[in-house]
Every structure is written in structure tokens, then in C-alpha cells.
């Protein structure tokens, strides 16, 4: 956004009915509701944020330890602790509305049943201060026991239902915990989703060999960070092969090169999660790195780079 206008590549894209001036967002669950990071980095210089998951009712979350380091990554089992729909609207959304100018907000939504999800979307829809929804389907489905995101029928029903509740951008966040992420990507597109986020975390466990207990209070948790970068790039590429809607690449992104891997594989936008814990500037650095890549390779606009992987197919 700075520098010589003539040579500056265009980082902005028209997506989800909005001008998105940077492809880099903070990932759900790693930036709360934006407030804390607003003190550390210029949020309006990046694309925006995906909020911590919001559920109808407030949730207390899991016992500690909730996070631990893994080789090349981390594991977390926060338990979707959140303030619940009402307080989100009152305290968090109003803050976001007042403090963000260019940065966009997507609200990450969770529920135990289809009705739960629908209630969050219906409850939020009339309010200002956010652009769209990211639906976290890596949640156990109270009815079926499996995750929404790993059950074709449950996922189709959920997306169809949410599509009826809103005209806002509806992004479904895919779980990699399936045999073929392409199948689930297609279901989302067919049922009317506007975009796909790829990917959420992998189930993992660490054992404290001294106490002979799981390190994580909830026993298992989700693995994120650089360790999952190649899995995320693969899922993005796979989803791109079988769908047309915009993809948001997530998983292990630390810098411009990581992000460009996702972009070439098919992502129009990316999210930076765990890397922000290691360096709060990671998202800003990633934005700068993508811009530098475009400049170095003489690419005039980011949009024309998306999905241009030369994969011989």
C-alpha cells in the first residue's frame, strides 16, 4: 500500500461483495475478538480477522493445560471458550465496529446442533460490524456424535440451513480429518456456500512421560502451526480442483513464501494463526512478503496469481 504507485502491485481483491485490500487475515481462535492485537499491530493494514468461535450460549472451555508445543507446531484444546452470542454482540461486535476502518471481520460460528448454528447466524445477521460468517464444522454433532465436517449428510443439511438464514458471505471451514477434502468442499459449494476455509487442525495428543498423563487437560487437541503447512496447501489445491468459490488458505503460514504457496495452490485469501504467537507481526510480515513476491516476479495484481500453480493438469 506504500511506495511507488506505478510499480506497486495491486493487493486488493473484490471478494464476497467487498473490497478486501489485503489477503492476510488473523485466524479464528488466535486473535480473540481483535482487541488485544489492535494494540500490537495495525489491524487496518491487513485484511482483517476471523473471530474466536461464537456459540449461542457462553462456554467455559476445557481444563488446563490447554496448549502445548509440538514439533514444528502446537496443540490446543481451548474447548471453544467464548462469551456467547449476546455478549459477543454487546461487547465485542460494538468494539470491532468502532475500531476497525478497512479491516473486515468474519465471525466464526459453532454449535452442537444445526439449530444452534442457525441461532447464532440469525442472531447476528441484523447487526453491523462484520462482513460474513466462517462456520466451524470441526465440532462434535450432538445428534450424530461425529463432527459436522466429517459427515456428508450432516454437512449438507447444515450448509443448506444456514444459507436460508443469511445473505451474507457464508464460508465453511473444512476439517482435514476426512479421506478426501474435495468431497466435502463440493458439498459446501453445492449447498450454496460462498467460500471455503482450508484447513482446521488435526487431532493430536501429547503424553507427559513423567506423570504418564496426557499433557492436554482435554486429553487430545488440535494440532496447528508450520507442521501442518503441507497438509493445508494440499487441501487447498484439492478443494480448488473441484470447486469454484473462493478459498481461504490456513495452516502453518509464517511468511510471504508460505502464503504464496497457498495462493498458487488456489487460495484467494489466507489466515495466519499460530505464527502470531511466535511473532505478533507475522500477519503484517506475511502481507509485506506477498507484496514483495508480486513485485519481484512482475505480477501486477494479486488476483492474477491465485490458483496459477503449474501442476501439469
Amino acid at each position, binding site marked *: 500500500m506504500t511506495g511507488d504507485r506505478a510499480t506497486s502491485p495491486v493487493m486488493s481483491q473484490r471478494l464476497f461483495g467487498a473490497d478486501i485490500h489485503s489477503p492476510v487475515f488473523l485466524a479464528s481462535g*488466535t486473535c480473540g475478538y481483535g482487541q*488485544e492485537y489492535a*494494540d500490537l499491530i495495525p489491524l487496518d493494514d491487513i485484511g482483517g480477522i476471523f473471530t474466536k468461535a461464537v456459540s449461542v450460549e457462553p462456554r*467455559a472451555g476445557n481444563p488446563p493445560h490447554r*496448549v502445548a508445543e509440538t514439533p514444528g*507446531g502446537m496443540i490446543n484444546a481451548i474447548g471453544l*471458550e467464548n462469551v456467547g452470542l449476546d455478549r459477543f454482540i454487546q461487547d465485542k461486535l460494538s468494539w470491532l465496529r468502532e475500531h476497525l476502518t478497512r479491516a473486515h471481520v468474519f465471525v466464526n460460528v459453532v454449535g452442537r446442533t444445526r439449530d444452534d448454528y442457525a441461532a447464532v447466524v440469525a442472531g447476528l445477521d441484523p447487526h453491523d460490524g462484520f462482513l460474513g460468517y466462517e462456520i466451524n464444522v470441526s465440532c462434535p454433532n450432538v445428534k450424530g456424535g461425529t463432527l459436522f465436517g466429517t459427515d456428508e449428510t450432516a454437512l449438507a443439511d447444515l450448509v443448506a440451513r444456514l444459507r436460508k438464514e443469511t445473505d451474507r458471505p457464508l464460508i465453511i471451514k473444512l476439517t482435514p480429518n476426512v479421506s478426501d477434502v474435495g468431497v466435502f468442499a463440493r458439498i459446501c459449494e453445492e449447498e450454496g456456500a460462498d467460500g471455503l476455509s482450508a484447513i482446521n487442525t488435526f487431532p493430536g495428543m501429547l503424553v507427559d512421560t513423567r506423570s504418564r498423563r496426557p499433557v492436554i487437560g482435554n486429553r487430545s487437541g488440535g494440532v496447528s502451526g508450520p507442521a501442518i503447512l503441507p497438509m493445508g496447501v494440499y487441501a487447498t489445491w484439492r478443494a480448488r480442483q473441484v470447486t469454484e468459490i473462493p478459498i481461504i488458505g490456513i495452516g502453518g503460514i509464517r511468511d510471504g513464501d508460505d502464503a504464496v504457496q497457498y495462493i498458487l495452490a488456489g487460495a484467494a485469501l489466507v489466515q495466519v494463526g499460530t505464527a502470531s504467537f*511466535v511473532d505478533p507481526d507475522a500477519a503484517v510480515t506475511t502481507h509485506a512478503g506477498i507484496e514483495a513476491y508480486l513485485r519481484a516476479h512482475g505480477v501486477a495484481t494479486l488476483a492474477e496469481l491465485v490458483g496459477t500453480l503449474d501442476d501439469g493438469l
Partner: protein
Amino acid sequence: MLGLGLDTPGTWLLPRPFSIGWRSERGLIGILLRVFGRGTRALSALTPGETALVLGPLGTEFEAAEGRTTECVAGGVGLAPFVFLAAEEIAAGRPVRLVYGERDAEAVFDTDLLRELTDIDAEVFTEDGSRGTRGRVTAGLDPAADSVLCACGPTPMLAALARFAVEHDRDLQVSVEEHMGCGIGTCQGCVVRSSAGRWVKACVEGPVFRATDLDWGAP
């Protein structure tokens, strides 16, 4: 939080929480680092001129009270915040006691350096008696003293002190340990249980809490 950042070739390290050990007149801050696991080992391998990434200061701090002695109770590397606290209080002319326990003599921090940094002598306890007084730090406390009690160390030590404080109706502040993600209150990773049954964040609502505000579980 202290870490290696994202640039260092070949490394991946979530930042680890550290106390400010002391500050110099030139505005430098010092860290007392004890090698425990892989993170502290990697950080201790930094050589002069290499860069670490610091995010801070973060969270709450111990509060001394005007006119009362501050009694610092340190277990192991829990010594770190008290080097800073003691130095500040002594410099301000306020009375401080430093009761410091370790497993054995080998683990005890350089007491000469400690005196140099704080201007007071630590009263050392070791579990095996190989240095200072044999026994636990609790033995060094006068139940009837009118002091502000501040403690940092392993959770069992803090829990024992919390019971001591309740029993003798003493004010106690504790600095707790929990695994951290962000260090700034966004990830909800670092919670401990409050006496009200809520999860509170060690990184921003703590690490220093009033002992009575936390749930110490069954004894």
C-alpha cells in the same frame, strides 16, 4: 514472553513466559533463565549478538504495601521475579525479606550475585540441608508477622502457602505457572481456576493473583 521469532533458521519455538529479573540503570532488562526443557535450552544457547524476541511486560505484578515488610517466598526458579521486586523495594527504602528454597545446594542461585542485584541476603533453604537451613520455605515464615507475603514457585508450594495464609489470616499474593500461547489474553490457553469456579487467564489477569482468588483444589 521470550522467544526466537520466526526468522531463525531451523527453529520452531513458541515463546515462553519469563519474569523480568532485574533492570539496569542503562535501561537494560535482565532475565534469570533456568534450563528446564527444550525451550529454555534453546534460549540459553543464544550467543552474544543473537536476537531474541521479547513481548512484554505483560500481566500483573506483586504489590508491596507502604509501611509493611514484603516477605518474598521463592521456590526454585520462582526466585526470578523477586530479584526484581526486592531490588526495587530496597532501592525505595522499604524492608524486604527473601526466603528462597531449592532441592539441594547445587540448584541454589549464586548468592553473591543475588546480593549484588538486590542488596539483601536471601535466607536459603534446601530440602536435603546441603545448603542453608534444611527443610521447606514454609518453615522460614513467622505465622504472626505483619508482612505482605508474596510467593512464586511450584504449584504444590503455592498451595501449601495458600493453606498457611488462610490458617493464619495472612495476605498472600502468588505468581502462578501455566502453559501459554499468545501471552496477551487472546487465545485462552493459560487458564487457572478461580475460587469462583471461573477460568482466569494467567497471562493478563495474572500471573500474580491474591491466593484467595484461586481454587487450590483438595489439599
